[in-house]
C-alpha cells in the first residue's frame, strides 16, 4: 500500500511516532498486528516490521525506536514523503470476553499494546516499565487509564522492573476471570512466566524475530513452541501473538 507521511515526531531521544495517511481502505486491524515498511536506502533491502500503534480512519501510526540503519533512515523522513507499507499482517491478540485484563509493557513494547489499551482500556490495568522518568512520555496518551508505572532508576513511580511492580500488586487481581497481555523484551517474558506460573493465568505475548517477508513465505522468523506436531511457528504468520505457555523461553 502507498502512504504519505503526515508526521514523524521524536517523542523522547531515539523514540518516534510516525503517522501516515494510507491511500485506499485499511482492513480492520487486530491489536498486535503489524506492517512491513519499505525504507528507501542504499543499505536497506528488506522491509522492516512495526506493530500498529494506532489507527483512525485512513491514518495509521507506528511508534518506533532507532536501533540500526533502517530505523535511523526512517527517523529522517519528512512530512509529505511516500512510504510503502504492507499489512496488516500476522495474528494479533485474541480478545475474548474476559471480565478483566492485565496489560504488561516494557520499554518500546508499549508500541505493541497501545492500540489494545484503546480497545479494552476500561476493563484493563496497564503495567508499564521503563528505564527512567524520560520514558514516561511514551505512555502519556494512556494516562487516563491510570497505568502503574515503574522505572529502573526509581525516578518515577515504582523503582524496579515492570514484572516486580506487577508482583507487588497481583494479589489485588486474584479471583477474577482474567487474562494477561504483554509486550516487551525476552527477559521480561522470562520473569513474567516465572511469576505467572504460580497463578496459571492465560497470557498472550507478542514475540519478535527478524523477518524476511512478514507473510509466512521464508521461514526466517520461526520460534520454537511446545506444539509437538509443528514445533516451529512463524512469528509473522502463526504469531506475533502467542501464548506465553507455548513458547520455549
Amino acid at each position, binding site marked *: 500500500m502507498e502512504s504519505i507521511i503526515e508526521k514523524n515526531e521524536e517523542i523522547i531521544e531515539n523514540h518516534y511516532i510516525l503517522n501516515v495517511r494510507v491511500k485506499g481502505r485499511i482492513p480492520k486491524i487486530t491489536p498486535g498486528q503489524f506492517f512491513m515498511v519499505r525504507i528507501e536506502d542504499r543499505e*536497506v*533491502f528488506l522491509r522492516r516490521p512495526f506493530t500498529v500503534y494506532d489507527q483512525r480512519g485512513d491514518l495509521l501510526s507506528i511508534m518506533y525506536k532507532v536501533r540500526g540503519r533502517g530505523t535511523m533512515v526512517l527517523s529522517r523522513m519528512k512530512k509529505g514523503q511516500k512510504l510503502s507499507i504492507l499489512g496488516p499482517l500476522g495474528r494479533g491478540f485474541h480478545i475474548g470476553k474476559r471480565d478483566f485484563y492485565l496489560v504488561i509493557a516494557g520499554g518500546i513494547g508499549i508500541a505493541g499494546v497501545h492500540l489494545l489499551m484503546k480497545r479494552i482500556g476500561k476493563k484493563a490495568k496497564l503495567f508499564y516499565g521503563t528505564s527512567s522518568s524520560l520514558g514516561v512520555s511514551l505512555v502519556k496518551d494512556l494516562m487516563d487509564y491510570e497505568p502503574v508505572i515503574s522505572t529502573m532508576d526509581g525516578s518515577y513511580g515504582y523503582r524496579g522492573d515492570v514484572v516486580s511492580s506487577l508482583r507487588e500488586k497481583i494479589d489485588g487481581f486474584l479471583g477474577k476471570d482474567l487474562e494477561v497481555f504483554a509486550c516487551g523484551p525476552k527477559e521480561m517474558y522470562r520473569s513474567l512466566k516465572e511469576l505467572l506460573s504460580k497463578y496459571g493465568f492465560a497470557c498472550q505475548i507478542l514475540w519478535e524475530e527478524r523477518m524476511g517477508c512478514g*507473510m509466512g*513465505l521464508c521461514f526466517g522468523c*520461526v*520460534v520454537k513452541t511446545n506444539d509437538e506436531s509443528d514445533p516451529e511457528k512463524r512469528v509473522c504468520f502463526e504469531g506475533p501473538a502467542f501464548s506465553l505457555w507455548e513458547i520455549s523461553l
Partner: protein
Amino acid sequence: MGNISVELFGKKLRNPVMNASGTLGYGKEIERLWKISLLGAFVTKGLSVRPHHGNPQPRIWDLGYGMLNSIGLQNIGIKRFMEEYSQFFRRRRTPIIVNIFGFTEEEYFECARVIGHTSVVLAIEVNLSCPNVKQGGISFGKDPEVVRRIIRGIKSETDIPVIAKLSQEVKDIVEVAQAAYEGGVDGLTLINTIPGVVNDGGKFIRGGISGPFLKSFALKAVYECAKRLPIPIIGAGGIMNANDALDFFLAGAKAVQIGTATFVDPNTIPKVIKELKRRYKEGRWKRDL
C-alpha cells in the same frame, strides 16, 4: 494480452514464471494477495525424507542489496507435504516442481521414491547445494562425479522429469552441468544462493546469499550452460522485475524463478507476468520457446 505459455518437459505451462524454492512458503500463504494458479508452476520449499527443524535464530540478514539466510532447510518432510498440499495444487490446476535435498546420496534416492508418480508433479528439482555429511560437509554439487551419480540414481527411481539445481560456487559450472546431463538430467535450474559469511555481533555466521547480488553471476551460469547443453534451463538469481527476467531469457533460459524479490514486494511475480505479456503482445519480446 500476449500468450506467453511455454512447453516444459512436454507439458504446457501458462507462462515461464515460477517462484524460487523456499521463497513462497507452502503455497497457500500468498493467496491472500494473489492466486497461486497465476504461476507457470509452483516450486516447493526444499523437502527431505524426514522433517527437518532448520537453524536457530537469527536466520535473516539484510545485506543492503540482497540478503543472507540460514533457514537451514526447515521442512515438514516430503510425505506430509504431498498428503497435505498436493490436493490444493490439483484444485488450482497448478503443476508443482518438488524441490528435494538429502544429506546422503541415499536420501536423495529415497525422496524420489516417496514422491511416487502423481500427475500434479511436473518435475523434481534436485537441490545439490546441500552438505554431504559423509564427505565432511562439502556440498554434493561441487563434485561432477557425485552429481552424475545422484542424478542417475534419481532417474532410476522415477519417471518424473528431473531438474538439477546448481550453485555457482564450483570450479566450473559448465562441467557440473555436463555431468548432470550425462547422468540423464532433463533440465537445469541456475542458480542457487551463493555461500557467504556475515559478522553477527562478533560471531561469523555462514548462510546463502540471494537477491540482486546474484544476478550477474546467475546470468553468467545460464549464458554459459545454455550455449553448451541441449536441455531447458530455468534461470534464478536476483530477478526483481521484467527487465531482469528478459535478460535471462535472452541469455538462454526457458523459464525463470523469482525468489527474494517477493519479500520486498509480494506482488513481484504477478507484476512480472503482466509486464512480460504486455511486451510480448507489443512485439517487444521475441521468443523462440
